[in-house]
């Protein structure tokens, strides 16, 4: 069983993703903002982090930056955001984002990307 941290402040999206991924046998933890996410990340290990970019307190970019530079985590990061600005996406990849999915999203695509990222991480660990 793989564990995923979902960082999302929209309750509707949270609930939908939670149900989609739980049905795929993932364990989901939910953080409503960047600060809560950092606490989760300090306390537990995750196989994947899915984060929005527009978050209260610390936004998604700050979270990614802290994960890579402060906590030195190599966990795969999937950004799920309505922001489609090319520069922001490139900036995210530069900071260490592994994949990007645009909102509104296709649940099948989300499930496939999550599976691929976790498999990739597994391969890299071996």
């Amino acid at each position, binding site marked *: 069983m793989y564990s995923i941290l979902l960082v999302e402040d929209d309750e509707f999206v949270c609930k939908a993703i939670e149900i*989609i991924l739980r*049905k795929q046998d993932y364990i989901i933890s939910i953080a409503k903002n960047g600060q809560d996410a950092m606490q989760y990340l300090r306390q537990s290990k995750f196989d994947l982090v899915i984060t929005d970019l527009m978050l209260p307190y610390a936004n998604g970019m700050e979270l990614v930056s802290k994960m890579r530079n402060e906590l030195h985590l190599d966990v795969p990061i999937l950004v799920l955001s309505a922001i489609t600005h090319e520069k922001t996406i490139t900036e995210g990849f530069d900071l260490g984002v592994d994949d990007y999915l645009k909102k509104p999203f296709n649940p*099948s695509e989300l499930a496939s990307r999550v599976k691929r990222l976790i498999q990739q991480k597994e391969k890299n660990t071996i």
Partner: protein
Amino acid sequence: MSSFRQWLEDLVYYFAYFPLVIQIAIIVSVLAVAGTVLAYIYMIIYRWQKEKQAQKEIPLREKGDELLLEHIIYKSLGGADTPVALPLEAFSVLPLQKPWAARVFISQLIAYRDNFTGDIPLLLRQLYLELGLHRAAAAALKSGRRKQVINALVELSGMGVLLEKDHVLTLTQSSDQHIREMARCYVVQCSPDAPFEFFSHVQEPLLLWEQFELFRIISLRKDIPMPSFARWIDPQFHPSVITLCLKLAAYFQQPEAIPAMIRMLHTEDEQLRAVTINNLGKLMALEAEPILVEMYPQQPDSCKLEILKALGRIGSGNFIGFLQQQLEHTEDFLLMKHAAHSIVAHKALASGLITQLQHSLTGTRQQVLQHSLNPLIKY
């Protein structure tokens, strides 16, 4: 109680003997206090009713979420080739015969449509139709009641369902501004075959924000081939329709619209002429360059500015001398700035000229050129 009554009786008795100013002050104070109390009572009742309604909706929303996630969202994970059957009987547990329940469920369907892509929006639309939830909106469209018509248009737009096409087309010409605007957005968003038909009949102007919204909706429509917007770039149509179509022709890169746009350069409407020039530039209309340069001296500043910008966007290099002349001689700062920017936009074609100008220009003109050469500065 009796003392309060006595006090009130005394007040009424003595009120007539108070000076006029005091009488007015008392009346105003009483009205203000009573008004404030009434406003608070109204707010409390309104909030209580809303809260009660929200509480009543919670179980329904939970059940709706559960059914939608279970039967639509999760089943759609099965793969693109696996068709999802709509289990209508599963949704029969919802009390959709009650108008408030139907309204809540429809709002959920719209939220799901807004948040998911792929087959899901189509499945939700199909569910909406098969459950017969569209009937109330169809009736509301013809009700003639303003609020009901607008709500029906919003709902049907959200669900992507076009109903009562002929009636809706008449609503696009409604005398009520809000109905008219909503109906126009609805037709553009939902009509499968003729979303732009009403452009030909527009009598009331498309307001600027309305043009913006229509542009957004049209640019998001991927399910239909875009028509040639040149059809509406004609003085017989409303100037606001022409403006929108000019922008659309440029956005969808329709070079076949260039001849119609060139004809529009003769319009007397200065604003429309400026928009036309701007979009000729965005279409990189090479054939328009000599015409623009020729008409330049007779134009007002707004059109001159657009001509300079257009020459920069087209960037053929044929009129770089003209831009140089403007940069060197114009006294208008904005024209100077855009002439410099357009020279720089010629990139390699202008490299020799830029070096030469850097040496020959002095003062403000040189600063403007240096400013335009900075790739970090955008304007």
